């Protein structure tokens, strides 16, 4: 199912619903859903033993939307919302190679989040997205570390 070419106003007619590009999202199979469910179980593991076991293949939740080029792309994230959308947008915008980044939730009743990235020459939108996700993980490490240190020293002052 490839993206359909849309010609608006062809033969002097308005675009109809048939002209709408098909969803690039594959239908979720029961198997994929089951795998996702099992994968969520992994979340419950010990924070220290983060993903010790070999992770099972998860359903593909990230899609490249049609009409994307190397330096300008839109990505569709399934089952993500403002939580990740805005945080990721911020960290990608902090990348100097990125010309533009924005996220949207196209419709509130669809559990999807789109993110648009346009970069300058020399890098790609996909690279920028990967860097964003990496940077966000680094940030989480710093926050977790400092938070727990502060907590422990506060506990020390409280009992002293």
């Amino acid at each position, binding site marked *: 199912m490839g993206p359909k070419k849309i010609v608006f106003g062809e033969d002097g007619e308005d675009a109809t619903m048939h002209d709408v590009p098909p969803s690039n999202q594959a239908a979720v199979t029961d198997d994929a859903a089951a795998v996702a469910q099992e994968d969520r179980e992994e979340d419950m593991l010990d924070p220290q033993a983060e993903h010790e076991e070999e992770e099972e293949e998860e359903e*593909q939740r990230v899609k490249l939307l049609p009409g994307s080029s190397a330096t300008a792309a839109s990505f569709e994230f399934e089952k993500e919302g403002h939580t990740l959308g805005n945080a990721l947008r911020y960290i990608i915008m*902090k990348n100097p*190679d990125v010309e533009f980044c924005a996220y949207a939730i196209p419709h509130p009743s669809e559990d999807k989040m789109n993110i648009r990235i346009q970069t300058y020459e020399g890098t790609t939108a996909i690279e920028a997205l990967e860097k964003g996700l990496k940077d966000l993980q680094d940030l989480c490490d710093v*926050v977790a570390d400092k938070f727990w240190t502060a907590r422990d020293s506060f506990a020390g002052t409280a009992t002293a």
Partner: protein
Amino acid sequence: MPRHEQTMAFFVKPSAAELERRKIVGINKETVTDVTSTDFPGHYPGEDNSWDLEAFSQGFNVKFHNNSQFDASFSLIGLDASIANAFRRILIAEIPTLAIENVFIENNTSVIQDEVLSHRLGLIPFKGDKEGLLHFLKWFKKPPPGADPYANCFDFNTVQLELSVECTKKEGVDPNKEDDPAKLYNHANVYAKDIVFTPMGQQEEYFTPPRQPIAPVNPDILIAKMRPGQEIRLSMHMHKGVGSDHSKFSPVATASYRLLPTIEIIKPILGADAENFQQCFPKGVIGIERVTAEEAAREGSGYEGHKGEKKAVVVDTMRDTVSRECLRHKEFEGKVRLGRRRDHFIFSIESTGQWDSDELFLEAVKTLKVKCNKLEKQVVNMVR
């Protein structure tokens, strides 16, 4: 060539005063100013502003104000709102807890309807051994429609509870002298503590004393009221879930943040005005001091000739609620500037009891990290 390499040599550093100014969200009588963050590359010509883990690590700070099981309050300083908000949202909707999911009613002759009773039961927060809750208990996978709904119920994903109470008259209590139903009858009030937990299979290992059994956090939650002859007999299944599915699974009663208020007194506020000014704020925000001889002698300070008079000083902005009351009065016009610090988040987390409040925040950070880690793999997979 990437853009930043071309300009690398020309980065300018803004002054400390300028950086300080950018941190403030202005609050006027009817409007707000400088609401959005501007610390992005390309926003200020010649400045870097690109993501730098080292710089973030240097600038980021956590300060605890209060830390108890049910209420933690702390400041996160040096963070963007988008990140702080992600943590807040994860706290509310994405951290799993155990809650009553199915109620099987055998008999309910109380005045509270089955569905209302079930809903009330679902909302009761439970506690239990941490190890058991976090590591032993796993997600329950709902069987497809048509299949046996209990096919997937195992000791590691389902906790069974029972509630079996019957209201009867108490012996030896004179109804003519006593009119308190709680004293007249047995089980006139049905409380959360009446719920009985029976460990199944391996649950015995994790949820029997000395380890913490599954029990309501607050034993005195009122579930229903009954009168003699009425009965509630039911069993329940608990599963793990997240707040985005149903708020009964949310591990927090509230999880919120506010920005640290700032109050800047630009021109001296003296005498009776100082006291009125103090009254515009909650207790402890504004203090009253005397103008010192040195201040009165300094020219251009605004204190000339006011030695010994009362003056308003800012003591603790943390206590301020930013009511903007002081902006309504003519006498303070042009003398005070209100604002909030854009990167100073005062978090408040109130746990429902299954987790500890401070532990919850750490879990939220971990959740965001795991989420990013998984999606990073997905992006790599997408390209393949």
